[in-house]
Structure formats: structure tokens, C-alpha cells
């Protein structure tokens, strides 16, 4: 078996390449059914339906974004009401400054809701993905450079309870995966 990285360092996992998006999809279904939990498939673009094939749930980023949006709305409400109705009621054209002037604050409330939601969506996505990070053991494998071009890979981590060098290798071979490689942490 090929090795990537420094073999004296801890083992990260076993990686392999498949020829196409559909091969990756079907490989994912089999790895899922074999009971693995700490593994991932890598592709140059998101593959439609792969979440189902891998057995992962819908991203819960939307919940974070909802909280971000509510925060933005609250900040905007405070930011407009406190100065305009309490701290410094600015009377323009003799119009009232009470709570019922709220429609005039809708644009700012909307904008800040969107702003904080967008920040949460972007940075929440990065946080859930553990990004940014300097490096990752999988990058020790030279073939993996093609993941952003036309390569389709899968990797099963050594920390997976089902991981076993021989059995995992046999399973990957059974999937028709090529270039099966042990990838080390450093």
C-alpha cells in the first residue's frame, strides 16, 4: 500500500480515488452501509444528493443564521428607537416620535437583519467547517491536488471505530477505488 506523509507520525486514515462523480456517489452509499462514521468524500464540486448517499443530515447553519438575523433586528430596533424616541426625540415637520412611528425604522431594521444574517452565514459556515486552517493531513497526499480539478476521493479516518487497515482496504478495493493510500498526520 502506498503511504503519504511521514510514516512515523500518527495515522490520519486511508484515502482512495474513484473515477467519477457517480462512482463516488455509489461508493459513499456502500461506506455508509458498512457503518463507518468518521469519513468524507472529496470532489471538485458539490454532488447532488451526496448528503443522502453519505447519510449526513441537513446542515444546521440555517439555525445559526436565524439567531444572527434576530440579533440584527434587535440591534436595529434598539439603535433606532432609543435615540429617536427616548434619548434625543428629533421632531421633524411636527410629527410624533412615539412607538407608532416604527414604519420609518423598517428599512434600517431590514438592512441590519440582512447584514448580521449574512455575516453569520459566511462565518458560521467557516466555523462549522473548521476553517480557516493552515493545513490538513489529507494534503500530504500528492494526488489530492486534483480534488479541485477533476479528482474524486474518499478518505476514512483512523479514529473511526470501524477502521481496520485490512478490512477497510478490502472494502475500498471492493468499491473499485484506486490508489489506496495510508495518509499520515504530518
Amino acid at each position, binding site marked *: 500500500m502506498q503511504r503519504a506523509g511521514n510514516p512515523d507520525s500518527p495515522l490520519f486514515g486511508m484515502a482512495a480515488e474513484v473515477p467519477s*462523480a457517480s462512482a463516488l456517489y455509489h461508493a459513499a452509499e456502500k461506506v455508509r452501509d458498512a457503518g463507518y462514521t468518521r469519513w468524507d468524500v472529496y470532489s471538485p*464540486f458539490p*454532488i447532488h444528493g451526496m448528503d443522502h448517499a453519505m447519510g449526513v443530515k441537513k*446542515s444546521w447553519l440555517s439555525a445559526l443564521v436565524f439567531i444572527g438575523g434576530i440579533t440584527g433586528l434587535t440591534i436595529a430596533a434598539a439603535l433606532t428607537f432609543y435615540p429617536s424616541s427616548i434619548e434625543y426625540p428629533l421632531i421633524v415637520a411636527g410629527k410624533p416620535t412615539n412607538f407608532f412611528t416604527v414604519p420609518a425604522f423598517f428599512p434600517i431594521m431590514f*438592512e441590519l437583519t*440582512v447584514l448580521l444574517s449574512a455575516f453569520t452565514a459566511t462565518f458560521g459556515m467557516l466555523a462549522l467547517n473548521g476553517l480557516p486552517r493552515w493545513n490538513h493531513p489529507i494534503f500530504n497526499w500528492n494526488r489530492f491536488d*486534483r480534488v479541485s480539478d477533476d479528482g474524486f476521493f474518499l478518505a476514512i479516518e483512523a479514529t473511526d471505530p470501524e477502521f481496520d487497515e485490512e478490512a477497510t482496504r478490502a472494502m475500498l478495493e471492493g468499491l473499485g477505488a484506486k490508489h489506496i493510500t495510508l495518509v499520515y498526520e504530518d
Partner: protein
Amino acid sequence: MADAIMQNREAAEQRITRAPLVTNNRSMAWITDHVASVTEKKAPVWWWVLFTISSALAVCSVLCIGYLISTGVGVWGLNHPVGWAWDITNFVFWIGIGHAGTLISAILFLTRQKWRTSINRAAEAMTLFAVVCAGIFPLIHVGRIWMVWFLAPVPNSNAIWQNFRSPLLWDVFAVSTYFTVSILFWYTGLVPDLATLRDRAKTKLRKFIYGIAALGWRGGNRQWRHYEMAYLILAGLSTPLVLSVHSVVSFDFATSVIPGWHTTIFPPYFVAGAIFGGFAMVLTIMLPARAIFGLHDLITDDHVDKMCKIIVLTGSIVGYAYAMEFFIAWYSGNPYERYVFVHNRLAAPFMSWFSWVPGIGPEMAALGANPAPYWWAYWSMIFCNVVAPQLFWSRYFRRHVIWVFIICNFVNAGMWFERFVIIVTSLHRDFLPSSWGMFYPTWVDIWTFTGTFGIFLALFLLFIRWLPMICIFEVKAVLPEADPHHGHDDHHREPVAVKGAAH
């Protein structure tokens, strides 16, 4: 018999199948290489020529802005009664251009228009650079720019808070939110492609810079699932945002009492105009880029065709809005409103040609004898925005890029005239004839505006050189072989080119 049926069926299927989004059956590696290599090869000579010209123009703008700040807004031609002139015209012009980028990236994403994938990156970049150009004008038109922090929501030096009920302050929030969200959306879309550039990098420096910029992206599905959700949410947020931004820009006018501005039609009218003008600008910069880099297989003639259709649709909405605001001016019975539309805009010398027409002849003769001072601006607008784009009803004009380019430039000019007409013709003669006046631009007005084209183009050229101008990963995702079920039902006669495009 069976053969004949099959042949008929094949012919019928061919007629209803969609054209492939990427032509000539290009492979994934071809797409990566073709798009990424633009940033890797040496810059061609024409790039340096264009970059030199556009940065020289940008410097003109910067010098004019320096002169304005050090001297005062008096160096511009605006004065009473025209207190907003080219500054706000240019602001609305540029921000409107930005909206097509967001439309392509967000609204077409939500409506699953897969053809957007090869144009959204450049269109989003265009959005950012247009908003940069737009942002300059409201900042410098305040005059004492060192006081611009008065716009920020903190009490000013006299402990006075802003008027949060003012559309001008809404505008500050809307435009700055729009710019920020556009950057986030754009960068989120860039991350997987920056990883492509990182993985292809040959030199240590490129590897380092693109490595940092790609944030460690590795394309695992456990990342893609959050990524796709983030992209979907950002698209969902950007869609109402883009509508709100130009609505708020139109509130700057609509909530005032100036005849010609005080209309409820403004928000949808402005939004349609923004998308209209923005698509024209997208084509104006994309057609030369496509020709130069030979990207005809990615930005196909079908893409151009579809954008032309959007232009004729939004152009007709704009034409309808022009007619409707005119109708409401008449129907409202408000003499000031009517005066602005008829005597500040419509009345033109050529109307006296129609003095023979029975019934309206005398009115035509009177209007022709007393034309509006800015009749040429109004009629340029009508010609460029309403008449010229109607040519796109014809497939001939949509399919010949020279015509597309010419008509789009009419639209670019027309949309600038539209904002000029709205702003200057409304202001120059309003309620009191004793306070009427004209606006004449100074050389500072002219060069500040001309220079923003330099800023826009220079930024766009830098973008082309350093970042992939087509969204590589999204284009791959619309290839037929990207479909995980591709190639498994080969025994059916499948129209191969269509599978990826169909959903």
C-alpha cells in the same frame, strides 16, 4: 415501422431538449485549465494597454476628488436650484449597475437558472466595483468630508443623533449593507476556486497567497453541505436586499415633495431600471473578455441570448414606468407635476413638425416653440432605453454580438440619462419661476465621472488577472457527468448533453 417511430421520437426529443450549458463536450480538466490559466500566464500586451489607460483615468478621478475636497463642492457646477446634479446621477447610475450582478448570482440561483454559473463570478465582481464607484459620490458630495462620520449612527460632536426617519440615513445603511453582503457572497463563491488556484500554483509565493485566501478548503462533502447551505442563505438574503437597496435609493427622491420625484412608482421603477442597466453593463464587459480569452464554450451564445431577453423585458418595464409616471402626472391634476413632465422634459423642438395633425396640432406647435431646456436628455433617454432595446425581440440582434454590444452601450448611456433627467430636470424648474435655473457641469464634474470608468475598469482588469473570472466549480457541476446518476441508464437512449442541464 418501429424504426420510423423511434426516429420521429428522437427528432421530437431533439427539438425539446435544451442546449448544453457547456458546448463541445469539454471535460472538467479543460474547464479548470482554461479558466485558471488566464491568471497564470503572463499578462498579454492589450491587458497592459487597457490597464494603463484605465488607471490613468482613475488617477484623473482621484485628482479631481482631491481638488474638490481641498477646495469645496463649489468646484462642481451644482448650485441653487440644482443642488444635486452629476454627483447623485453618477451614484444612482453606478449602484444600479451593481444590481445585475446580484440578480444573476442570487435571484437566478434561487430560480435554478443553471446558465448563470458561467457569468455570475464576473457579474458579482462587477457589482463590487460598481458599488465602489457609486460609494465615492455620496461620500464626497457632503462637501466637508472629514464630517462624514456624522452619517454613522453615533451622536455627533454636538451630541445630536441622526434622524433615523430620514431616507438619506436609510440609504447609508442600505448601501453599506449591500456592499458588505456583496463582498461576503462573492468571497464565499470564490473559496473553492481559490483552492483550485492554490492546488495548481507552481511558485511558492502563489501557493502561499492563494493558500491563505482559500482558507484551507479541501472540498469534502462534509464541507460542501454547510457551504451549499451558506450559499443558499446568502442568495436568499441578497434577493430582498437588492430590491431594498434600489427602493431605498428611490426613497431619497420619492419621499421629498419635488414634482417629478414625489411618486409611489419609484421603487419598482428604479429596481427594474437597475437590473436593465446592469445587464447591459455585464454584456458590455463580458463580450470583450469572452472574445479575448476564447471562452465561447463557457459563455455561449445562448447566454448572450438569455441576457438580451432580460434586457428587453426590463427595458419594457422601464418604458411602461415612464408612461405610467407620465399618466399619473396628468391624472393627478397637479399642475406642478404636469409642468415638470410636459415642459421640463417632454416638449421638444421637433414637435412643431406635427402641427398639421388634426386635433393636437396647435398644442404640438406650442410645445415645439417652447421646448424644455433639457428635452435632448429626455429624448435620448427614451431612445436609448425604450426604443433601442426593442431590437432584441429579433433573434438576429440577439445572436450577433456586434449588435448586442452596440445596443448595450445605448442602454448604458440611456440609464445615465434617466438619472440625469429625474434629478436635474425636476430640480431646475420647480414651484417658483423666480428660482428657476440651469445646471452646467464643470471640468471637475466631467473628469470625476469619466475617471470612475477608469476605476471600474482598472479594478475589473486586476480581477481578471488574479482571480478566476468564471466560477469553475459551479460550471463543472452543470456538466452532464456531474450528475451522480449519469451513465447508469445508458441502455435508455439518453440525450447526453441534457442530463445535467435538466435539473
